[in-house]
Structure formats: C-alpha cells, structure tokens
C-alpha cells in the first residue's frame, strides 16, 4: 500500500523533459491533468543566541547553522516568488534591538545544499524555480540570516521578532 501511495505521489507535478541547459524542455503538449499543491515547511528559526553588548552579531545564510530555513515542495520546475516581511528591530517588552537584513541576508537553492545557495536581498524578494525532480525531490530551500546590533547598554532579555515568508506560484 505504501509503495502504491509512493508511486502515486510522484505525480505531484508531471512535465516531460528533454534537452535543456537549465530549466526544462517541454517537447510535447501534456494531456494529463495534474493539479498540484504547494507545501512549505519551517525547518529552523533564525537564532542569534547569546549576543554581547555593543558587538554586532551576523548570521550568514550560506554558512551558519543558525540560519532560518524554509523548505518548499511544489510542481516540479514551477517558478515561485518569495516575498519577505522583515522586522527592523527585535523586542522584549519596551526594549528594542536593531536588526538589519542586507543584500546577502537571503539565500536560495533548489536542493538542500546551503553552502552552494545563491545570495539575494530578502527585502527585494526572490524568484526561482522548484527543482525539476519528482516528489519528494521537487524542492526549494530558502535560508535567511541577518545582523543584530545590540547597544553597549542593551537591556538584558530575550529579544524576539517575526519574519514572514510569502510564497506563491507566478504562473496563475
């Protein structure tokens, strides 16, 4: 039964392929109807851990295990757009700590290879394609980092904030 379900699951997105430099070649029209969904998971939150007063702390999305990570599954080779809602500070009560997301605070790749992901500026959004493989390898991974800058007299506490990732297909 599990095998049958597994085989069926491979039809999550069906698109024939042929020659291609990158992306997919579609030589013939596809008669098969294959309506699919979009699945996304939050794998890691973005954690700066304990930070020292007056010392900026950087989390590099390409190299740090503390990066935030989302994993997306969808129609193979489909183009997705990612938009981010980013805070400019983390807070505990009335106290705030600045946080900055630079031009390389985001990183994306269609497979789980963090050290080979492509940097991007999360404030500008990101468009790329889901991996052109059958389920469960029809993936896209997005890492996010940032820089917090605690003041020299930063009030002690657990400063938190929220990043919202919005993901959508661009083709409908």
């Amino acid at each position, binding site marked *: 039964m599990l095998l049958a379900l597994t085989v069926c699951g491979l039809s999550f997105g069906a698109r024939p392929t042929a020659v291609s430099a990158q992306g997919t070649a579609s030589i013939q029209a596809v008669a098969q109807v294959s309506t699919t969904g979009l699945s996304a998971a939050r794998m890691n939150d973005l954690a700066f851990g304990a930070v020292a007063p007056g010392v900026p702390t950087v989390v590099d999305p390409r190299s740090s295990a503390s990066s935030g990570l989302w994993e997306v599954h969808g129609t193979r080779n*489909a183009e997705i757009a990612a938009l981010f809602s980013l805070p400019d500070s983390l807070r505990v009560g009335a106290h705030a700590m600045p946080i900055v997301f630079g031009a390389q605070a985001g990183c994306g790749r269609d497979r789980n290879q963090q050290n080979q992901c492509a940097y991007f500026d999360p404030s500008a959004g990101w468009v790329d394609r889901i991996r052109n493989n059958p389920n469960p390898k029809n993936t896209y991974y997005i890492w996010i980092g940032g820089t917090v800058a605690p003041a020299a007299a930063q009030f002690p506490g657990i400063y938190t904030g929220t990043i919202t990732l919005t993901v959508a297909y661009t083709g409908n």
Partner: protein
Amino acid sequence: MRGLRWLRDVRWWRVIAGALLLMVAAPVAWAILVAPQAIFLSDRERTGEVHLVNTGSKPEDVQIDLEYGYPATDSAGQIGIKLIEDPDSGAPSAASWVRAFPHRVVVQPGQRQVVRLLATPPAGLKDGEYWSRILVTSRGAQVAVATPDSNIHAGLNLVLRTIISLTYRKGAVHTGVTVDDFRVTEEHDSLVTWLGLTRTGNAAYLGNVHLVVQDSLDHARATWDTPIAVYFQQHRRLAFPADSFPPGRYTVHLTLDTKRSDLPQDDVLPVPAIERSAGVVLH
C-alpha cells in the same frame, strides 16, 4: 457536483499520497500543504474547497484570508505577486465577496482540513473574471532561544504564508494575449529574453512560454518552458544560461500556448498559439 468534479480532475489521492510521502521522506516540525494551487468558481458553481494537510509533526495554527492580487512585473522585468489590500472600486476583485470557512483553524499533525469557499457576488455583476488570492498563513510555536537570565539573547520566529489563486467567472469569458515586445539580448553569460504581453478579452490569460534556441544550422540548442499568467500587462525579463553556447548567430523561437499541465484543462481558457522569432548574436 463541484466536489465530484474536483475529485475527478484533481486526483486528490495524488495530493494525499504526495503529502504522505513528504511526511515519510522528510519529517519536520512545522509544515503545511495547500492544494490545489488554483481555485476556479463561477456563477454556476459558487462554492469550492481548499485542502490543508499538516505534513509536519506539530500542530499548525492556520489562518485563511482573501486579498485582491495578481502576478505582475516590476520595472526590472521581475515577476512577483502584487497584493492590493484596498483595490479601486473598478478593480475586478472578488476578495470582498468570497468567504472562507473556517477562517482560522488548528490542523493537527497528519490531519487534513477542508476549507470551504463561498462566493456571494453583488447583484448586477458584469460578465467577466474576478480575482482574489487566498492567503494561508501558518504559525508554529514561539522560538525557544533561551531561558530568561541576565544575558542578551536574540532570535526570530519564521511565519509562512502560502498564496494560491482564486478566479470567479461570470457569464461569457474570453481571453487572449498580444505580444508587444519580443527581444533577445546577450548579457554576460546569459541569454535574456524580454517579453511584453498585453491581455485581451475579459479574463486572465493562463498559458505557457515556450522558447527554443536554434543555432545558424537550425539545430535546437536548448528549450525552456515556463507557465505564465497575464492579468493585465507584463514586461518580463527571462534570463537563461548561455555560457555553453559557442559564439555565433542564434534564433530564438517563442510559442505562447494555453496547454497547461498544472491546471485542470477545463479551467484554462483556450487560445490559439502565438509564435514569434528573434535573432541574437552571442560573442
């Protein structure tokens, strides 16, 4: 009947099977599957369903909202989803008169939740298409960065919002697209196609862009294919790697058609294919 048709067209069992496979293959803490990727309602079928599956290992607090929006390009030719919270009165928005039930729900791990959609359009609605985006926001537990102490700790929660499209069709709908611009240029090691499209008719154009690169001997060197949705106008920049192509003259053939494999064909308005060609010299 809509549900039966959906079952037939969408093959829900595939979605379930895919979700199960995800759960087996990659157990994660917080994950939600939203299906299908596009909802089509009409004046004959005013109800629909969105299915949520928690493929993670912890409960998902999920909120469903509707907001007017559509794919659009920016000045750099990059595509994105344009959301408009308060659209003009003349905008073809269905966001204010389509409701989702439940609006908020906790989905337990491994569970499936059906969200029902009901369209109650205003009287006297003109024939045409009306659009919304369905925003599915899922939140996990708060990030655990440390227990309170005298130190300074910092961390961020990640919230996920998945967007799918909703289309409501009233009366006679038809669509088409005109190609206003089709140019190909070389930029560094990439081949860049500029594609200007304007939708015709009273419904969104849902189709494919199919590009074939031929060398001077008419040999196909590469093909690219991407779904496209034109709601008003688009001026897209599509970049493809060309570093493996030897220098020389190439011709890029464009075909726009409406044979979408990712959408139920009954819901895609058919339009005759359009073909164009443009030349480029790679150095």
